[in-house]
């Protein structure tokens, strides 16, 4: 019996079967099996030893409050590292962004080469930079500051040059028309349009740097991460818990301040 019209209308239209979607799902499942095989991750292992994991976690949840006082000097060092790294990295990024923005530097060869260098620097993760700088300048906060400088540069330069490229070209043309030189154009036409963005990106980079600087100490690049390593090595999880608590509190406070000031800035 053919379906009546009402029944027809009540049915949902058939979805078109897309071959590409099917291919993607197959790729994902293959990738899943492959990576499980390569990394040798079996969920059973986790469940077998999960008591150990929770054991550590429970110990961390009983932080050794007295240890907080010991952590303060290195905490201050951590924040200092983050500030210095942010300032130095942003300063370099500021100049560099002006050099790679295509609406300021017209020479495509120069911007192209500088951009390739920027993209290479951007690929290196923060802790890796830390490990390399520890090998180069030795253990201590200087290695951390240098690592954060390079890292900040990578974060800020990308955001900032993209902001520069989207500015209104009108003022630049106006100043070119009255015969201004490059520096005057940058000062009077480019700067007023982008300075708030720049400050906002610097604050954003500072947030990331505070997070990054707290673990840099683990590999010897200065800051509170040193205690992380020391307490973990002697299995003193109560103290580790305290350090983590301090880190979380500081990160949350600085995130809050920076987010609020960024909102105020962009108003």
């Amino acid at each position: 019996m053919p379906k009546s019209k009402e029944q027809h209308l009540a049915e949902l239209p058939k979805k078109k079967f897309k071959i590409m979607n099917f291919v993607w799902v197959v790729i994902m499942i293959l990738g899943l099996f492959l990576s499980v095989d390569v990394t040798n991750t079996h969920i059973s292992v986790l469940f077998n030893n999960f008591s150990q994991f929770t054991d550590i976690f429970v110990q961390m949840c009983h932080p050794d409050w007295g240890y907080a006082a010991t952590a303060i000097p290195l905490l201050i060092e951590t924040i200092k590292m983050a500030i210095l790294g942010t300032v130095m990295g942003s300063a370099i990024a500021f100049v560099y962004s002006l050099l790679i923005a295509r609406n300021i530097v017209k020479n495509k060869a120069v911007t192209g080469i500088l951009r390739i260098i920027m993209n290479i620097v951007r690929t290196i993760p923060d802790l890796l930079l830390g490990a390399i700088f520890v090998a180069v300048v030795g253990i201590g906060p200087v290695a951390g500051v240098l690592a954060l400088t390079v890292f900040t540069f990578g974060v800020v330069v990308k955001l900032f040059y993209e902001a520069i490229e989207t500015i209104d070209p009108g003022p630049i043309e106006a100043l070119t028309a009255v015969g201004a030189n490059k520096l005057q154009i940058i000062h009077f036409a480019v700067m007023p349009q982008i300075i708030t963005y720049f400050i906002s990106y610097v604050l954003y980079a500072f947030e990331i740097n505070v997070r990054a600087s707290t673990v840099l100490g683990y590999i010897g690049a200065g800051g509170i991460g040193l205690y992380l390593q020391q307490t973990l090595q002697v299995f003193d999880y109560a103290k580790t818990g305290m350090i983590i608590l301090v880190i979380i509190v500081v990160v949350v406070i600085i995130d809050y301040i920076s987010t609020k000031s960024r909102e105020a800035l962009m108003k």
Partner: protein
Amino acid sequence: MGTTMKKLPPKPVDTKKKIQHWTIAIVTVVLIIWSFVGMDFGGIKASAGQIAGAIVAGIFHPDWSYVYNGSGEDLISQLWETICIAFLGTFISAIISLPFAFWAANTRHKKWYTSRSGKVVLAVIRSFPEIVLALMFIKAVGPGSAAGVLALGFHSVGMLAKLFSEAIENLEEGANEAVTAAGGSKFNIIMFATMPNLMPALISNTLYRFDVSIRSASILGLVGAGGVGYPLIIALQYRQWNRVGVILVGIIVMVVIIDWISGWIRKKLV
């Protein structure tokens, strides 16, 4: 007469704003000086320049024999392991993130404290250092890539669920209402309105997180959680600068290729 024409009108002065700006500027400068004062720049090794030169030379004269020798300990297999760690870690975190995202999303049908509490939980997960998580998992499952996978899988939830919940908050209500109006059940709403609208954002955010995870996975080896970070730290300790160079080049090439592929997919998605 000529001089009067050239004069610009004076800029309007807003005293309150000016004071505000100056205060911020002074505080910033004081903070920067304060950070410089306590820093011990004397601790730099005398051989710093030499080592930096050796690493740069190592990048240009990489240890080619290390790239592939079929032993399973070479650069290619280490990089492959890193990619697998990131892939599996991202996969796990994407699955865990979904319920968290619905919890933290601030939609109209919820009490304010539900989404607020979800956001706080995610913020705490985000702030928990990845390295420490990796060390905890090393204690649980032993050193190796499995610890790295689990650490990544759990740590990424903080960021990924936040991105997901923002995507949920930005959803149009229209499609949901249309399905409700046509008599769809709650399950129908999710199947025919929420999920199809949400999917592109979810995939795009997951791919973005995969980019980040690749970088994290190459770090986790520094503490023994598998991946290319382990041979790197060994090479740094044994001062094999050629090997450091080739590993760095390998990481950079891997990250650039993965970024490029995921950028390409995300562009097609939009």
